[in-house]
Structures are given as structure tokens and as C-alpha cells.
């Protein structure tokens, strides 16, 4: 192990946190910021759902509604789930590979502050006259140009997105360098934990696609200030092609770290080494590579892209996705499963993400997509994938790793209540949307015909159930931190290195390391004990 020397006593208090280059502190700050943006974006969604409970406009104006769905989508994608995905990597990767710290730790801190600044700037748009951005989270051109969406709120949105994504990209660079160069002796690439593999492909996706977004946003802002970028022939199409080259990989950046978390949770609570490791690692590389090649499937109904190539690569995603599901499920088979809250959320992830994935297969077919895209069917698809998928897997990881991060256990009773509220809430909210979209309700509408009322009311009710679930989770965190039931180093018998060290880990993570002979070093240690 590379020995490291520490300089002076650590700065304490607020400054000690806000300017810290300890990867664990940066990660927790980023987690906290993501949570704040999650609540803010969630409140926007609650206002939207309240407005949509009845046809006609009762609560907000049309312009406000447009700002709300723009900020809901933007807040969730740019400011909540992507930074959250990187934050879990920032915390866990050095621990999983037996390192004392990230490579280039200042980059993690830099990325954090760029992201927070971007988020603040985006939300400050609400305080500007003409309001916040209102061209949707992907700002289709020419709607997003200066003539069609006036006001500095839209420009601030562009700057905010640029800064947040720049921060994400910089952090991805640090994580890649860490995985490649800071592994402890014995931790070969073939012994990386499933979670580490999922983070590796995440940062590769980020490093190769996020820079295209940075260029596109800069170009869009230039077009708004000076014109002459996207306003000629093919310009609007070019904007979408460039945007979606980022816009598709980002949804996988918002997915892979969480499927990695689910893999670890399933392995730990099945008491069993992760099954089909080789199949899983190859398929995750294929999955990520394919996800870079599918982006114009968001443009099937435009009539201006080559639908065949993009529908072929999109449908091919079934192969690695199926192999990953095989590995996750077969880890349960033959195990000795403990139904902790973490495991419940992991199982919920498997079943709800499946709906997201299967509806994705449907819309990967252009003749089907011609009807279903830009409708509520599509809204249901990506919410099942991101909410039922990524968020459920995040909660699985939260219940698993909270004790390691804080040293105390989360209450299981409140956890199970949280789980059931989320399951009921998610299905009540998003299942009706499959029907609504199929029956002809477009997305991004503030009102709709009378006959869609009942299903919208059900979806709104589901939204309130979800909100209740989130409150229960926050209450659980607060209560558990007060109650302080000590967790010890290894409350669940996990397979990976972080369970060797104390909860929470010391500044340099490990005072010693066990021998590393496989991707589940702690299972090896436990099995060798007499």
C-alpha cells in the first residue's frame, strides 16, 4: 500500500467541511446537496401533480407550469441523480479498492462546488423577471433560442447546467484515475467489486459524453447572445443530435452506480458471493458501450435521423441487460436471504426497473415509438427506470451503508414503512401514466380532456404517497442519528473491504488491510476463520 503522510491537524468546524479534500466529506456534502435539490425538484413535481388533478388551470398559470416541469426535470437529472451517482462513488471507491484517498482529491472538491454553484444559479432563475427556464430539461431548439424564450432565466439555466455538468466531468476524471492507479496490492482489475465495475463504466460514459454537452450548451448560449449557430438548415436537428449524445449516456450514469449498489446489497443479504461475476463485468462494459450508440432513439419521430441503426443498437441492449439481471437474480438463488430494508429495496429495484426496461424495449421500436413518444407512456417508462430503478437501488444502498458512514444503524421498522409507501406510491403514480399515454395524453401539458381525469387523480394521489415515504425516510435518518444504536465495523456481513475498517472509517480509511484474493475479500476472510 502506498503510504501517505498527513501534514497538519485537520481544520475543524464548517471550514473543515466546506474546503475539505477528504473524499468522504466531499461525498457527504454532495449527498446532502443532492438531497436538497431532490426535495426542491420533488416539490415542483407535487405542484405539477396538484395542478394535474383536474383538467383546466386551478393552481398555477401556464407559464409557471412550464417553469415547474422544466425545473423538475432539470433538477432531477442535472442536480440530483447524477451528482448522487457520483457521490456514492466518491465515498465508496477508495474504500472498495483499499485506497487511503482519491487520486487528485482537489478535483472532487472542485467538482462539488461547480455543481452546487450551477444548481443555485439554475434555481435563481425563479427570482428573475420572465421567470426561470421554461424550455424543458433538454431545451429543444428553436424553442430555447432568444426569440422564443426570452429572459435571463433561460440563460442562467444554460450556465447552471454547464457548471453542474462540468463539475460532474471533473469528478469522473478523479474517480477514473483512482480506480486505475490507487488499488491496494492484490486488488487486480479482475478482483474489483461489482460496484467498482459499475462506477468504472459510469465515469467512462461521463468522460466521453459530458464534454459534448458542455460544447452544446456553450453553443446554445452563443446562439442566444449572437445568433448564427443552430438557426440555419439542419441546425435544430444538429442541436438535438449533440444534446442527446450526452442525454442518453447520462441516464446510464444515473443508473449504473445504483445497479452496482443493488449488486452489493443482494450479495451481502443473500450471504453469497455475487454470481456470474465474469458475465456481469463483460456485460456491463457492453451495456455501457451500447448506451453510447443509441442516442438518436430520442428522435425517432423527427423523421430526420436514421431510425434503423439506432433502433438496432437500442434493442441490442436487451442482451447485456438480461445478463445483468441473470447475475443479480442468481445471486439470490442458493443464498440464505435476510429481508432487511436494504434487501427489500433491492428486490423492489429488480421488479420495478424491469417495467422501466421492458417499456424501453417497446419504445426502441420506431413504429411503436411514433405513437408512444412524447406521451405519458414515455413519462411512465423513464420514471419506472429512474424512480423504480435508480432511486430504489439508492435506498437499498442507503440502508446498507448508512451504518458504515455514520456508525449507527437505521431503524428497520421505519425502513419497512418507507419501503412499502414507496412501492405503493410509485405504482399508483406511474402505472396510470402508461394508460394515459397510450390513450393520447401528451407530455408537458398543463391541462387535458375530461376523460383523462380519473387516472390523473390516481397519479396525483400516488405522488402524495411517495412524498409521505420520503418524509418517513428523513424521519428515520433524524431519529436514528439521535438514538445512536452503534453499528460496529460489520453489522451485515458484507463482502467488500469497507467492512474491515471502523464505522465511520478513519481519515485514511484503513489502519490495516486483509489479504485480497478475490472480489469478495471479507467473505474469504470469514470463511478461513476456524
Amino acid at each position: 500500500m502506498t503510504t501517505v503522510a498527513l501534514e497538519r491537524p485537520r481544520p475543524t468546524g464548517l471550514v473543515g467541511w466546506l474546503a475539505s479534500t477528504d473524499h468522504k466529506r466531499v461525498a457527504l456534502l454532495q449527498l446532502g446537496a443532492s438531497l436538497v435539490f431532490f426535495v426542491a425538484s420533488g416539490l415542483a413535481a407535487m405542484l405539477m401533480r396538484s395542478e394535474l388533478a383536474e383538467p383546466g388551470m386551478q393552481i398555477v398559470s401556464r407559464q409557471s407550469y412550464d417553469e415547474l416541469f422544466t425545473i423538475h426535470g432539470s433538477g432531477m437529472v442535472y442536480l440530483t441523480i447524477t451528482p448522487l451517482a457520483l457521490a456514492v462513488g466518491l465515498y465508496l471507491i477508495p474504500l472498495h479498492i483499499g485506497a487511503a484517498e482519491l487520486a487528485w482529491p482537489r478535483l472532487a472538491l472542485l467538482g462539488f462546488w461547480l455543481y452546487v454553484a450551477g444548481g443555485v444559479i439554475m434555481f435563481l432563475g425563479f427570482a428573475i423577471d420572465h421567470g426561470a427556464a421554461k424550455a424543458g430539461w433538454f431545451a429543444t431548439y428553436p424553442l430555447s433560442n432568444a426569440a422564443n424564450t426570452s429572459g435571463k432565466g433561460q440563460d442562467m439555466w444554460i450556465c447552471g447546467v454547464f457548471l453542474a455538468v462540468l463539475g460532474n466531468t471533473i469528478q469522473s476524471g478523479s474517480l477514473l484515475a483512482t480506480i486505475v492507479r490507487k488499488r491496494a496490492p492484490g486488488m487486480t482489475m479482475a478482483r474489483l467489486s461489482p460496484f467498482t465495475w459499475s462506477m468504472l463504466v459510469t465515469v467512462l460514459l461521463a468522460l466521453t459524453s459530458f464534454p459534448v454537452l458542455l460544447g452544446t450548451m456553450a453553443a446554445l448560449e452563443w446562439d442566444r447572445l449572437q445568433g448564427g449557430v443552430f438557426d440555419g438548415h439542419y441546425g435544430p436537428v444538429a442541436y438535438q443530435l449533440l444534446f442527446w449524445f450526452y442525454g442518453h449516456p447520462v441516464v446510464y450514469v444515473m443508473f449504473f452506480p445504483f445497479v452496482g449498489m443493488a449488486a452489493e446489497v443482494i450479495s451481502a443479504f443473500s450471504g453469497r458471493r455475487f454470481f456470474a461475476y465474469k458475465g456481469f463485468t463483460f456485460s456491463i462494459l457492453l451495456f455501457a458501450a451500447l448506451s453510447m450508440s443509441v442516442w438518436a432513439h430520442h428522435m425517432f419521430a423527427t423523421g430526420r435521423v436514421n431510425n434503423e441503426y439506432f433502433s438496432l443498437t437500442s434493442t441490442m441492449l436487451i442482451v447485456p441487460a438480461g445478463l445483468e439481471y441473470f447475475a443479480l437474480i442468481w445471486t439470490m438463488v442458493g443464498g440464505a436471504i435476510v429481508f432487511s430494508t436494504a434487501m427489500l429495496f433491492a428486490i423492489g429495484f429488480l421488479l420495478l426497473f424491469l417495467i422501466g426496461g421492458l417499456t424501453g424495449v417497446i419504445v426502441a421500436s420506431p413504429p411503436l415509438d411514433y405513437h408512444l413518444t412524447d406521451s405519458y407512456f414515455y413519462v411512465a417508462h423513464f420514471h419506472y427506470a429512474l424512480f423504480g430503478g435508480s432511486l430504489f437501488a439508492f435506498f437499498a444502498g442507503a440502508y446498507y451503508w448508512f451504518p458504515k458512514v455514520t456508525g449507527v444503524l437505521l431503524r428497520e421498522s421505519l425502513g419497512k414503512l418507507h419501503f412499502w409507501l414507496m412501492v405503493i406510491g410509485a405504482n399508483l403514480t406511474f402505472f396510470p401514466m402508461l394508460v394515459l399515454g397510450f390513450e393520447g395524453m401528451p407530455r408537458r401539458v398543463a391541462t387535458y380532456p375530461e376523460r383523462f381525469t380519473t387516472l390523473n387523480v390516481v397519479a396525483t394521489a400516488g405522488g402524495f404517497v411517495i412524498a409521505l415515504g420520503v418524509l418517513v425516510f428523513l424521519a428515520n435518518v433524524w431519529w436514528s442519528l439521535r438514538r445512536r444504536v452503534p453499528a460496529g465495523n460489520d453489522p451485515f456481513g458484507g463482502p467488500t473491504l469497507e467492512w474491515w475498517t471502523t464505522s465511520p472509517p478513519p481519515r485514511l480509511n484503513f489502519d490495516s488491510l486483509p489479504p485480497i484474493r478475490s472480489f469478495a475479500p471479507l467473505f474469504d476472510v470469514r470463511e478461513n476463520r476456524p
Partner: protein
Amino acid sequence: MQRRWTPLLVWAGLLAGLTCLQFVFSTNPYYWATLGGAALVTALLAGYYLWRPPLRAEEYVPDSSYATVAVAVGAAVAVVGVPFGPWLYLPGLGLLVVGLGGLVHELRVERRRV
């Protein structure tokens, strides 16, 4: 520790293969330049890690970096200043430069310590 760059090369190869597959269907440069560019960037990253000398035995780990925060805030103000005007982006650039200077100082101090 050997072959740490293999997954990167495999990934670059997959991207290159998917780029070649595009030509069966279309030669639109917006398709192959972006995906092919991604393949190239990944190959370059693999090459970089292949070439880089091994880590030093002892490495200094900072505990905090005020300069980094200054760089971030300065850059943010400079970027949001673009639509508003020089009254905003110039101070941002100023803070950014101060932060970068501080960063250079921090790194020099670090190098002397190891």
C-alpha cells in the same frame, strides 16, 4: 497491477465497432464523429495510463484546499457573467485567477514536503 488499462481498451474497441456498424446505415458525420470521438478519447485514456510512470512510494494527502473553492466560485461567477456582462464576469475571472494562483502555491508546498 498489470493490464489496468485493458477494460479501457476493450471499451474503446466496442465503441469503435459500433461506429463502424453505423456505416452500414448512414455516413452522417454527426453520428460517427461523436461516437468515433468517444472511442478515440477512451483509447487515449488507455494510452495515458499505459505510459504513466508508477506512483511514488510516499504521497501527500491534503486535508483542505481553499484555493480549489476559489477556483470553483470564480469559474461559476465568470460563466454566469457571460449573459449578464463584464460587471459580473470580470470579477469572476479575477477570483478564478487568484484561486489558480493559490492552487499553484498549494501544489508547490506539497511537492517540497514529499
